[in-house]
């Protein structure tokens, strides 16, 4: 299929349809409303279900009910709306229901702003709702990757019977890029849904889809079942990408999503200046590629690891955990809707290198700090 120029939000919407997630529920919120507008037109064409509900609280729970049928269900929102969905997300994780949730992140906390941010990392990866559960979380850095990961998310949700979240910053939603949809999309075989979906108790015992286990031993058993799934994800679903990593690197950048792309520009420009820097880009942020990162970050040539995020520092905690003090982990971030420029990041890297290799510069940094 030929490439088409599409806005991120619309490309993701189309990708969900191509992956058979023909059931979509929504509530308008900037900067992802184009998904809803696109699917309002597109769903009737493919005989799918489109419904705008009264709130994200309702949307989350409509998704819960819809997912109980065993069919693929998709919803999208942005940060404050995703907060409202946490109730249903926790229940769905507990009841082992698959669904795909897109968060086009905007700055927070609270109403925050409408510009791109990566400040919902904790919420997405550490369990935004109550209870012992995890989401499988994918973080695209291009529109093409957003398409591919949306289709993958539909598969993984069914494979693990767990909600899968795609986190993109506002840039991923709003930017236009050429994308290509797979011609004849096929998926590896999935386990049958006819062991758990509510389809009517005809010729079988009634099925109950629930997260309530009043017997503490049964509740613990359920948590162990969930835990084992997350361990399996850690084994089989870790995804990441390396960019210009080599034995010449002094600094390794860890960054994801749009921020990682900006870091690629930084790395290209520094390369021309004779400074060798590599990039480690997590694609799954849960499960976090900790073993792979540890390996890359602790290579002999690496002096420092720099985590760059559009937040005040969230993923950096996973980076620190993975590296376990074997290398210094530095952080640079802007937030509130401010996207760091390549020059800002470059400046940080140059300062880090000077700090490591030139005592003079370190003194002058201290001096300037005193002045400030």
């Amino acid at each position, binding site marked *: 299929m030929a490439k088409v120029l599409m806005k991120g939000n619309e490309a993701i919407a189309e990708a969900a349809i191509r992956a058979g997630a023909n059931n979509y529920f929504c509530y308008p919120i900037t900067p992802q409303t184009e998904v809803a507008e696109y699917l309002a037109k597109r769903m009737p064409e493919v005989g799918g279900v489109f419904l705008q509900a009264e709130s994200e609280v309702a949307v989350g729970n409509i998704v*819960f009910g819809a997912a109980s049928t065993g069919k693929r*269900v998709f919803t999208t929102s942005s940060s404050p709306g995703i907060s409202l969905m946490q109730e249903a997300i926790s229940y769905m994780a507990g009841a082992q229901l698959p669904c795909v949730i897109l968060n086009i992140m905007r700055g927070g906390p609270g109403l925050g702003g409408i510009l791109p941010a990566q400040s919902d990392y904790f919420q997405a990866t550490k369990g935004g709702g109550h209870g012992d559960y995890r989401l499988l979380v994918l973080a695209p850095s291009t529109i093409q990757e957003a398409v591919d990961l949306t289709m993958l998310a539909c598969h993984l949700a069914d494979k693990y019977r767990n909600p899968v979240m795609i986190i993109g910053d506002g840039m991923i939603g709003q930017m236009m890029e050429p994308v290509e949809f797979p011609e004849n999309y096929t998926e590896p075989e999935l386990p049958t849904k006819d062991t758990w979906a509510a389809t009517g108790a005809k010729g079988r015992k009634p099925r*109950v889809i629930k997260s309530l286990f009043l017997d503490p031993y049964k509740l613990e058993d359920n948590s162990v079942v969930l835990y084992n799934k997350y361990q399996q994800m850690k084994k089989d679903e870790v995804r990441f990408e390396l960019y210009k990593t080599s034995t010449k690197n002094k600094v390794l950048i860890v960054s994801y999503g749009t921020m990682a792309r900006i870091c690629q520009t930084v790395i290209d420009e520094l390369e021309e200046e004779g400074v060798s820097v590599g990039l480690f880009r997590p694609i799954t942020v849960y499960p976090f590629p900790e073993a792979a990162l540890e390996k890359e970050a602790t290579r002999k040539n690496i002096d420092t690891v720099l985590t760059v995020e559009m937040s005040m520092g969230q993923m950096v905690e996973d980076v620190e955990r993975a590296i376990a003090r074997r290398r210094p982990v530095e952080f640079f971030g802007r937030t509130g809707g401010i996207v760091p420029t390549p020059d800002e990041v470059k400046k940080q890297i140059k300062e880090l290198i000077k700090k490591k290799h030139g005592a003079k510069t370190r003194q002058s940094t201290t001096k300037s700090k005193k002045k400030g």
Partner: protein
Amino acid sequence: MSEQTKTIFSRPEGLQETVTHYCPGCTHGVIHRLVAEVFDELDIRERTVGVAPVGCSVLAYNYFNCDFLEAPHGRAPALATGFKRLRPDMIVFTYQGDGDLASIGMAEIVHAANRGEKFTTIFVNNAIYGMTGGQMAPTTLSGQITTTCPAGRDVSQTGEPIRVSEMLATLNTPAYLERVSVDSPMQIIKAKKAIKKAFQYQVEGKCFSLVEVLSTCPTNWGKTPAESTQWLRDNMMPYFPLGLCKSPDSKEGN
């Protein structure tokens, strides 16, 4: 069985053979049975999915003999919406108390009713939160004593009790809304008719349907079962009048 004997009363297929956790004198058991009898009479049990609330009937899935979803508090109409939109061929019902439906879940029931979602709600109104031990509900009557209004509900501070069926009847979208009671055999027969009608409308794909059932809570009202049914007649019925609130077939009741 000999030719002379005939079974005229038995457990409906729609109910499981089990002991319920409901308190003595509670009317949930009667209402469960009426719903289950309707499953049998309309032959819909095998294609029915229930949605349980949070509240005393949270374990309804252990008593009904059909597939069930267990919803977060108040969200049963949202789950029912999602399920029914994807499976319009199935029969979907929510079973909710007054705290669940009229307090935390008010937005969900109003919007589901207004969208004309083709499912059925059995709304059990006993004017109190039962499972948490007798707190004030949006339907608690003026002056009624509960653990969170120990001096009696002061409507100058908490507002007047909400009449859900009348409120939903103000929506323009067609619906079947009827308030019934299960305080006496005669009322139970009427309640059964209303519940059957509600499911019948759903089978026909006609409209949203809700039956509000006035119910007792002897444990948290601090009364015997007999005193409770009398209290319901004397206090609830005047404020929550029985009868049809809205019908999709006519303007009757509007």
